[in-house]
């Protein structure tokens, strides 16, 4: 019987040990190295239901890629267990591999640049055990699915960035696996290609083909647009897991204001962050030439706003734009992780 849960992890932990260069400047070119440990995945518990489109959202270094690599058997966990399609990722690796299609954030690896798209997929269909008599038909199916049928016989090295990502996705789809692990699939794509790929994943793979999809991203908009549920990963820990609306609900209390200012220092930003009534705040440099920054403040109530504006006046900080906004998933993310996504 097919298990109801497609992917599950219990207390999953991965610790990397490495040596990093000492921060002290040295005259010699042979630099001293110091041992360092990083807990990339920290006692993570997760359940993804069959047919679900699950978004794993987190800033760079949150542990998303590490988790995907554990689930597709590339990395052994240090502690805990994980099951994919009911198979243990440590003890039943071959069955896990038969259950998944994986797309990594660096999709060009392993692809043969001097072969055309069709020949690349022909090779991968053999190593993914696609039956020989079905190979041609399946390759043409997946090429049509990802919109590359008319480019099938063009050399891979002539493909655009978007086409390369699509071919990587086609490769993941070749064995028609029930589970897809997509690690930042829109990395490097322009806005149009990125949107079309997201729509394809939601409409064709998730809704029509009923695939279970684990979709990692550090773009909040992506996750909120297509995912049934979202898990927020930070420092290797799953700090929240809910529907996009449920996560936004964290922000129901209070007000969100979006402010653009110039001539503000880091110390002044910290002073705002420390004010009573300011729950949290994200900042990013929008225009380094003009010194323009965007501040996104989460206030306990709108009554706290005059205090902030008064601070701008006193400190001679120039207000460029001001907007009161509905809380977004990004605000919830900032609240939960204590960081901006672009930091």
């Amino acid at each position, binding site marked *: 019987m097919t298990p109801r849960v497609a992917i599950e992890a219990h207390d999953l932990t991965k610790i990397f040990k490495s040596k990093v260069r000492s921060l002290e400047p040295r005259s010699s070119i042979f630099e001293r190295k110091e041992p360092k440990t990083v807990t990339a995945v920290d006692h993570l518990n997760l359940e993804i239901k069959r047919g679900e489109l699950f978004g794993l959202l987190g800033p760079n270094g949150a542990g998303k890629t590490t988790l995907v690599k554990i689930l597709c058997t*590339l990395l052994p966990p240090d502690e805990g267990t994980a099951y994919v399609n009911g198979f243990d990722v440590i003890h039943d690796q071959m069955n896990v591999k038969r259950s998944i299609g994986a797309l990594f954030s660096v999709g060009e690896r392993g692809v043969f640049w001097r072969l055309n798209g069709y020949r690349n997929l022909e090779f991968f269909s053999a190593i993914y055990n696609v039956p020989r008599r079905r190979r041609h038909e399946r390759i043409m199916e997946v090429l049509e699915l990802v919109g590359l049928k008319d480019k099938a016989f063009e050399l891979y090295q002539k493909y655009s960035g978007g086409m390369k990502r699509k071919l990587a996705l086609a490769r993941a789809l070749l064995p028609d696996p029930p589970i897809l692990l997509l690690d930042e699939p829109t990395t490097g794509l322009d806005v149009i290609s990125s949107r079309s790929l997201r729509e394809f994943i939601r409409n064709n793979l998730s809704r029509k083909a009923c695939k279970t999809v684990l979709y990692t991203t550090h773009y909040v908009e992506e996750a909120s647009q297509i995912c049934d549920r979202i898990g927020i990963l930070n420092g290797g820990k799953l700090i929240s897991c809910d529907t996009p609306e449920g996560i936004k609900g964290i922000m129901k209390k209070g007000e969100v204001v979006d402010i653009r200012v110039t001539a503000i220092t880091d110390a002044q930003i910290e002073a705002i962050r420390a004010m009573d009534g300011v729950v949290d705040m994200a900042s990013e440099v929008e225009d380094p030439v003009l010194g323009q920054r965007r501040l996104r403040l989460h206030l306990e109530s709108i009554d706290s706003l005059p205090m902030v504006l008064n601070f701008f006046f006193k400190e001679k900080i120039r207000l460029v734009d001001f907007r009161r906004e509905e809380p977004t998933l990004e605000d919830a993310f900032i609240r939960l992780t204590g960081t901006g996504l672009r930091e």
Partner: protein
Amino acid sequence: MMLQEAEKIYYFMKRDMISFSTYKTNMALMVLSALFGALSYAYLGSNAYMQSVLETYHMSLTAYLLIGMAFNTYIGQSLTLVQRTINPWSLEEVLVSPTGLGTFIVGSSAWGFIWSTVVVAIYLAVGSLAFGVVLSVNLAGTALVLALGIGTLTGFSIIGAGILILIKQGDPITWLIGMLTTVFGNVLFPPQVMPYQLQIISYFVPQYYFFTCIRLMMMGWSIQMVLPEILTLTLMCAILLPLGYFIYSWCLRTARKNGTLSWF
């Protein structure tokens, strides 16, 4: 102005030197390669060379060099092909597929050996037709020696590929075997031209047995006539292939555990 440009050149050089120095193994191997290269060509040009060849192998210098160079293609392929194809940056895509490591190694190497066979055929055809080299090939013996030689050297290559996965640049095993082939492997000159102390090293190098046997098989000798050399090569192959597979698997497991598989 000139000083400013000179300073820029200095910083280009410094950047490259620091980057280069991070690949310490590679740096050391390049220096040693130069030393070994000089040594091998010095012997090639020595006076004792011609006489020794004729006495040991009963063949002309042209035939000696032709067979050596032709079959060195196989040795080169055996040493580097696996490493070129089982590299860290293409491994991940294959490791997530339901394909065994053994299939991947054999599959990745197959075309290289087929192409090497074409190259050897060209060498031998040119040698026979243009230079009148007379060959009387023992086909079964040649096939056996070739299989043993490829197996032995592939064992080294797999060890090298494993080490490459761990240290990322400058694999010392493949380098060492490549250098031993040049100087002690009986490719360009027989070890008998070297001082006795250096000749001893040749008897521990599989290529010595491979090139000795393959030359004699190409001249029509029977397997029985070179049985001790063939048995030695068989023993080396029986040890090195499984050892290579074991070491490669260990290096792969270690890189997976450390999360450094796709680093380069």
